[in-house]
Structures are given as C-alpha cells and as structure tokens.
C-alpha cells in the first residue's frame, strides 16, 4: 500500500487551510461592483398575498433594486421542481404544487421568500427589506403531517387534494397480511422519526454575477453538486443555457444533504444580477438557516412485525406518513420511498414485506434528504421493532437477530434491493466483544447500588450507498443518472491533476482521492491535486451525497487511472525497449519486472508531452477521462451497541459507552473513516437524545429557530466512541468500497433508544429522549 496509498492513515491535506482560517467559502468571494441582498420572507405559515408595495423600500438609502415574484415570472424564470417522479399505487403521478422562487399569491411556510432587496450594504438591504409592505390575508396553518390528512385540514396546494402528494406502496400486501394472520407473535409499534434541522456550520450562500459583455452568468454557491445545480437551473428554471452558466461551489462548510438541493436564493441572485446590473451576494444568517434549509426525517409509522413459533420473522408491515413541508424539494419524493422502504428488510431474511407511504404537504419548511436520507428512518423502524420483539418474546436481542440474519449472498429482499455481500455475524460478534455485552448484568447491578438505571441496546443496521445504477434509478423515476465522472491529467513533469464530479464539503477527498493515485503510481500525494466544484473545470458530475464519492466517484477515477496506466506502460515499454506486459509502475517509476531497468515516472510523462520518441502512431499527451456507472448499490452494514445510565430523579441520560463495528468494505484512509463515523454518531445521538424541530401547531411559527431552543450535540454529551471495522469487500466496484459517510447517523438512534428503554423498562419513548420525556416515561 505504501505510506500514502490505499489503507494508509494519511493526515488530511485540506485541513491546514481549514484550521488556519484560510479556507475560501462563498462569503469570502468578491467581485468588483458586488452588492448585497436580503430576502423579504413570510412571517406567516399560511397566507394569501393581497398586495406588495415596494415603493418605500425602493427609496431607502443604498437600495439598488427591490424585486418580486411578478418580475421573476415575467422574465420566464421557472418554478422549482422535484426531480424524482414517484407514482401512487393507483398509477397516478405525484401531485407537485407550484413553487415559485419568490411567492406571488400565497405563502406556505414561515420563511417563504417573497421579494429580494439589493443594496450597497447588507445592513441597508435588511433595513429596506423591512420596509417592503406586504398585505397578507392569514389562513389557518397545519404543521403535523398526520393531521394534514384530516378532511378539514387547511389545504396548501390546489394540485394536491387533501394535501396528499402520493399514496405509494411497495412489496406484497397479501402475503404480508397472511404472515401477520398466521403469526405466533406480532410486535406492533407506533414509531415517530423526529424532524431535524441540518445546521451545517457554514450557512447557505449565493453570489450571482451576470456579465453583460459575454451574456454569461457565474454563480458561486454552497452546493454539494454544482453540476446538478447548473443542469437544473438551466434546464428547468430557465436562468441561462448551460454554456452560459458557470456554477462554482468552492470550500463548503458542511452539507449533510441540505446543500444538495437548488434553493430559491441562488436562482434569484443570478436573475437579480441581470435585472439590477450588479453582482448580488446573499449569505444566510443563522435564523434563515433554521427557517429555510431543507429539514430532515419527520415520519410517523405504524409497524407490525410477525414471528413464527421458531422466532423467525415471517412478515413486516409498515404504514408511514412522511411530512414534505410546504413544497417538494429536489429529491424529496425519493427519500421516504426508494431510499426508505427498500431498506426495511434490514439485515434479516424476511419473506414478506409491505410498506405504504403517504407523502403530505404541511406549512413547514421543505423536507428532503438529510444524512442517511430514508435509511435512518428504515433502520429505526426495524431495529426498534426487533429489540422490542426480543423483549416481548423473552429472548436476548442478539439471539433474535442471529436467528434472522441473512447469511447467503447475493440476497434478494422483497423490496427491490439485492444485497451483494456482508457478514452480519462478524460485526455483531465484534461489537458484543468490544462492549463486553455479557458483563452487562453485573454493571447494571452495580449501577443499581448507586441509584442509577443502566440499560444496553443494540442496532444492526444496513444501508444502501453508492447511489446508483443510472438505469435502475431511472426506472424508479429519477430524473438524472447517478454515475460519476473523472479525468486524470498527468502534467508534463509528472505531477497529476484529478478532476472529479464529486464535491468535498468536509469529507477529505483531496486526501483520499490523492491516495488512490499515490497507490497506483507511487507518487507522493503532494504531487497530486484534486480539482472539483467548478463546472468550467470539470465537465460533468453528479456530486456528493448518499456516501457515493468513494464507491462511485473513486471508481470513476480508478477507471481513468486504468487508461492512464495503460498508456504510460506503452510509453515506458517503448523507452525501455521491453514488452508492455512486463512493465510495472510503482514507487514513482516504471520498470521492467524482474530486472533493474527503470524509467522515472516524470520521464514517462515528459516523453508523452515532448512526443519526440513515442510508439508508432501514439497521440501525444497523458490525460484520460472516464465515466463510471455503478452496477448495484453498495451495502454497508454493522452493529452498534450503546450503554446508558439514567438518573431516575431527573430523567437525564448519560451515555457510558458506545461501540460501533462497521463493514465498509475496503478502506482508503482509516483515520478519515473513523472521523466520518464519529461525526455520524454525533448526529445520530443528536437526533436520538437532543435535536427536535418544533413548530407551534396553532400558528406554524418555528419555535426551535435558534440554538437557545434547538439542542445541538456538544462534546460533553458524547462518550469516547469505540469504533472498529470488519471487511467484506464490495464485489460491485473496482475498489471494493461500500461507503461510510452516513452509517453513524443511520445506525445509532435505535441503539441509543433501545438502551434507554431497556434502562427504564418502558418501550414507549419518542426521540429526542429529552430528560423530561425519559422522566415522564418512568412515572
């Protein structure tokens, strides 16, 4: 592997600039003549707009322009769309309500953008935004998805009768019903997956610049997928044709899914730049982030799990209501369907599964993918139900899981997914050993003496990453292909640039992708640069989400490296007067295997560019591109064990240990993988213990609109994690990688809640398990 190759614990190249404050984010960008924008946002959750008067605002100091949705629509800017078509079980297409980047007739959630003010300074823009007079006719609001289905609930969109976006199903309903009817035991639960606010460290931002001379637009924006942003903004929103629109996502400070989507603000800043004739920058403040970043989760589920007399799971029936918020965000439709219900088989051999999912509009911020996207919701349903079933059946949770594990691969589940590889016993054993699971009874007894309630819980998660085979997702309704592209450019003196369609916003691609190259050619990673995040530099890409950059993005790089290697070998063979098949490239040189004949890597590169002495008919240069389209999803899986102590007087939970045993397939950089797991665990524990988004049900106001009320996990809330990995290489991609970015957030919530419910002896506990809820569950 070499000291910097695949498997090496290399320190992150990018961290120096990040931790010394030298990263360059959208807000660091400036263009001559640049001005500042503020958005006028709805203070109401639901209201008709009777009139908008911008006169006073337009006369305020420093104001360059005040623009509303009427001008936007007059200029032909299209509505925002959801790019994944899902059909209801009756065959009808999902019901998408119109979403104008600036609302014209109706506002549907607190924070809905109504107008933009452009002014010399940010303060002036804000002052003028307050002076825009909007006459609203307030309407009753609904924030709860279950109640939004009531007959008398306020209606959001004329396109979606009863607020219902779709009523979708998957699996075999009749077979599942008969499994339930014939079951020796059925475990039934109502499970709420709490709504979360993403809280990336860097708020969203956009800088739109229209260049009149070239009739060309540039957009700097906080995006996880700048190429998708360009595609969508040109093809659907008519901002500009692709060749006239450059999208740059520079350093981006975290996304967790929330920066996948194209939001109104980047569209409006680009358009406003042309309208006003000045470059327009907008940077969200933290309140705007809380109000308008796409939220995550928010499911209410009824689940029934059927067991035979031998404790084998015979069927699983799931009925889920998913809150979509006020508008269908870019990938929202796929999250509670194909990213959720297809994972309901978990790690278990379940012969019959049926899931019904209703997507519902409410007067809340749009809901879309958030770290894990659908898979945490599925894992939470399955793993809480299995653990509860074990308690009801009186057998150990580990034993019940073992009894039902899938052990033969490939395994076709009843819900589309075909698991390619895994060893669920291995991760279960590893986690139980590390957690000293068998010693728990003694620890509980000791805690009892101290007046503390101790509990242990586990979760055996599976997820689908490496999204995704383009034809497969196309057949399921995706509007895009989910391949990835790469280009490897070897410079004349041997340094290497890798252009990738993946986008790094904290993941460490500049390091791991370089390691891949170092591994292949034995060049130091300093001689490798990773270029990403700019549509003018990288031709096309699908971006980073769904733990796809390793499995898909790096596979594309590997394919391009194959081509470069093949050509380099031909050149080396020619220079060394040897046979191409005898050439190996390692440690920064090409050599004839088994001899001492070598040529340094840089000379191979130089030869390619001087072209003085190339094999007959060979083109000069050493640069190759590749597109990689995966053949299947990848299936990371693992076992998490959490042990807690609850203070019976206050309901406060201390996590006394958290063990994670993950199978991510092959690993490029174990340190980065551990970092990803730690971050994921912090987010999962945040969801389970601390984070809960609350809207006031009567007014639709966001109550948790700041850190005074929205509880982010802090270091002191978390234990020192004990993480390890087992490995069944992924057979589906050239690197054997499965992906690790979301596992922590997917697997941890049920482990933690199972531990608390074990401690307090009550299975009925809703996330986040705040002290008050845990205390109430003990009364």
């Amino acid at each position, binding site marked *: 592997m070499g000291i910097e190759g695949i498997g090496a614990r290399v320190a992150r190249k990018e961290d120096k600039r990040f931790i010394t404050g030298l990263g360059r984010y959208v807000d660091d960008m400036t263009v001559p003549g640049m001005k500042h924008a503020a958005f006028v946002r709805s203070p109401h959750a639901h209201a008709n707009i009777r009139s908008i008067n911008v006169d006073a605002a337009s006369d305020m100091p420093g104001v360059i322009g005040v623009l509303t949705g009427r001008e936007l629509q007059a200029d032909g800017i299209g509505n925002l769309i959801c790019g994944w078509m899902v059909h209801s079980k009756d065959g009808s297409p999902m019901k998408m309500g119109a979403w104008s980047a600036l609302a014209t007739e109706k506002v549907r959630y607190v924070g809905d953008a109504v107008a933009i003010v452009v002014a010399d300074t940010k*303060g002036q823009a*804000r*002052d003028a935004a*307050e002076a825009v007079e909007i006459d609203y006719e307030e309407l009753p609001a609904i924030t709860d998805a279950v109640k939004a289905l009531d007959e008398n609930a306020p209606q959001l969109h004329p396109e979606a009768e009863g607020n219902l976006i779709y009523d979708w199903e998957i699996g075999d309903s009749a077979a599942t019903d008969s499994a339930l009817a014939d079951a020796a035991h059925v475990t039934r639960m109502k499970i709420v997956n709490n709504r979360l606010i993403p809280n990336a460290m860097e708020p969203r931002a956009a800088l739109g610049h229209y260049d009149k001379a070239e009739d060309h637009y540039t957009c700097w924006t906080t995006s996880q997928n700048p190429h998708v942003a360009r595609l969508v903004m040109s093809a659907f929103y008519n901002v500009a044709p692709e060749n006239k629109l450059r999208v740059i996502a520079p350093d981006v400070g975290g996304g967790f899914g929330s920066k996948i989507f194209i939001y109104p603000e980047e569209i409006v800043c680009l358009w406003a730049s042309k309208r006003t004739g000045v470059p327009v920058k907008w940077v969200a403040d933290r*309140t705007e982030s809380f109000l308008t970043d796409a939220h995550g989760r928010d499911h209410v589920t009824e689940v029934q799990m059927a067991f035979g007399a031998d404790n084998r799971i015979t069927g699983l029936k799931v009925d889920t209501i998913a809150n979509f918020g006020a508008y269908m965000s870019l990938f929202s439709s796929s999250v509670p369907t194909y990213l959720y219900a297809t994972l309901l088989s978990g790690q278990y051999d379940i012969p019959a599964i049926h899931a019904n999912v209703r997507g519902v509009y409410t007067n809340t911020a749009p809901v879309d993918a958030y770290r894990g996207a659908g898979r945490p919701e599925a894992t939470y349903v399955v793993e809480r139900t299995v653990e509860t079933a074990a308690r009801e059946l009186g057998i150990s949770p580990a034993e019940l899981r073992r009894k039902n594990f899938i052990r033969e691969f490939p395994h076709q589940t009843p819900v589309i997914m075909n698991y390619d590889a895994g060893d669920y016993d291995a991760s279960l054993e590893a986690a139980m050993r590390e957690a000293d699971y068998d010693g728990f009874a003694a620890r509980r007894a000791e805690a009892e003496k101290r007046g503390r309630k101790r509990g242990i819980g586990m979760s055996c998660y599976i997820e689908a990453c490496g999204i995704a085979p383009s034809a497969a997702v196309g057949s399921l309704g995706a509007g895009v292909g989910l391949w990835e592209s790469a280009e490897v450019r070897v410079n004349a003196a041997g340094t290497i640039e890798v252009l990738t369609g993946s986008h790094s916003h904290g993941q460490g691609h500049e390091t791991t992708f370089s390691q891949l190259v170092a591994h292949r050619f034995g060049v130091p990673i300093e001689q490798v640069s990773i270029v990403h995040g700019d549509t003018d530099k990288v031709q096309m890409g699908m971006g980073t989400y769904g733990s796809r950059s390793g499995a898909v993005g790096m596979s594309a790089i590997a394919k391009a490296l194959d081509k470069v290697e093949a050509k380099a070998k031909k050149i080396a063979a020619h220079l060394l007067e040897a046979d191409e098949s005898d050439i190996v490239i390692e440690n920064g040189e090409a050599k004839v295997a088994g001899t001492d004949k070598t040529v340094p890597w840089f000379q191979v590169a130089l030869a390619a560019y001087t072209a003085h002495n190339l094999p007959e008919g060979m083109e000069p240069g050493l640069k190759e591109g590749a597109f990689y389209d995966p053949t299947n999803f990848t299936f990371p899986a693992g076992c998490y064990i959490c042990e807690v102590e609850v203070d019976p*007087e*206050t*309901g*406060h939970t201390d996590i006394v240990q958290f063990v994670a045993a993950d199978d991510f397939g092959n690993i490029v950089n174990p340190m980065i993988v551990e970092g990803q797991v730690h971050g994921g665990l912090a987010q999962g524990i945040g969801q389970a213990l*601390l984070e*809960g988004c*609350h809207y006031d049900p009567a007014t639709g106001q966001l*109550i*948790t609109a700041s*850190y*005074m*009320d*929205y*509880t*982010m996990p802090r270091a002191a809330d978390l234990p020192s994690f004990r993480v390890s990995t087992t490995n069944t290489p992924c057979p589906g991609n050239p690197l054997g990688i499965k992906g690790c970015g979301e596992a922590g957030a997917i697997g941890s919530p049920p482990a933690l809640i199972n531990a608390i419910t074990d401690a307090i002896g009550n299975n009925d506990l809703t996330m986040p398990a*705040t*002290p*008050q809820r845990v*205390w*109430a569950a003990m009364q």
Partner: protein
Amino acid sequence: MYNTTYRRASSIDEAVKLLSDAEDGKFVAGGQTLIPTMKARLAAPSDLIDLRHIADLKGVTVAGDRVKIGAGTTHAEVASNAALAKACPALCHMASHIGDPHVRHMGTLGGSVANNDPAADYPAALLALSATVHTSKREIPADDFFTGLFETALAEDEIVTAVSFSLPEKAGYAKFPNPASRYALTGVFVAKRPDSVRVAVTGAGEEGVFRAGELETALASSFDAAALDGAKVSADKLMSDIHASAEYRANLVVVMAKRAVQAALA
C-alpha cells in the same frame, strides 16, 4: 443589527448623563444578552452606553461576614475569586456554570440581575442570600428587586453598582441546565442561617425567580436532603414549554433543592 452609536462612560455619573442625553439609549455591560438581541433586530437602542470601563463597578470584597461584588464583575471573575471561594463557594460554583467560557468572560453580575431572565442563575442566588442590590440611586433588597419576567425595580436611568450580602452558615446551588441553551431549566439556591433557611428557585416560575416556602419550612426543622423526601411543590404557576412541562419542573425543584442541600453540606 440596526445602526447605533457606541459611547464609553468612565464614571457612573457620566453614564447616567450619557443615557439621559441619548434619544433611546441603553447601558451595555458584557453585551451577552443585549448584543444578540440587537443582532436579531429585536432591540434597537439609538445609543449604547458602555459600563465596562467604570472602575467603581469592579471587584469583589470579603470583609468580615460581608461580601460585596461590583456590578461590572464578570462571571469568570466571580467563579475564580479566591476570597469568595473560601467565604461562599456556592456562589463561585454557580458562576462557573453560567453559559460557556466566552459568556463567563464577558457577561457581568450587573447585566444578569438587571436583565432578570427567568432562567438566569444569579437571581436565585441573590434571593436566597437575602442580598442587597446597590444602585446609582439607592439600595434595594433582593426581595423587592426581581418583580417579574425580565422586570426589576430599576428605573430606566438607574445603574446597578454592586450586590452585597452577609455570609450564610451554609449555601449550595444545584442547576439542571436547559439542554439547548444551558440556562437553568430549574436551578435552586439554598442558604442556611442560624434562624432561617431560604430556598430560591430560578428557571421554573411563570413569574421568574421565587422562594419555595414549603421546602424552606421542611429544611428549617432539619437542614438535610432527607428532610425533603416526599416533598412536593405545586406545578401551578410553573412554566411549561417544549423543554419541560410544569409537572416536570415541579419535580426538578425538589430534586435540585435536595442536591443543593447536599452541596451545602459537602
């Protein structure tokens, strides 16, 4: 934030004068409450009169059984004051748990009591310690000072200059932090004197800090956590919000009171 004019006072008199000259002025001390409020555009003073450079507002003195703390003393200074740590460690402990290090190094005693946030820590300490609030105009007993949610007996142009109290025999503070803000979800300060016990509760009351009479009675006969076994306080008049119901807070009042007594006896 709206435009505002910053003015620095070097004496109490100058501060009062600057305020009276201002159209809609406000004193600023650590700024830990006022500045975030201004950033959220919820407050828009025309002038900010900075009290942080007034020497008379600084410092902690322990003389005999009297303690006096200048209003401009930061939470971090209270937390780490050696003389106070000997005389009344409960107060140092309390100050050391306010917010985070940044807040403690900026925020001041005077700002905290003038603001009288219903979840702030100091009001409980002052009420339990039967403290006196010294102002630019008069001396006000803590009993009369905290008048409601974010309400005090202070006049617009009145500056808190110091807080003083006589040392109790024993004192203790126990706080159950709000998981999000780390303010007190419920905090209880107990102070025992030869002839009385005071139990002051913050974070829980609908009208701000209050004394738990029933707990004081129980502890007056026996100053011991066990004296509170089975004690109950009514949930009426306690706050209910997304973090805690009134019933849960009622429970916390008793639990925190016990822990405060244990701390006082430790």
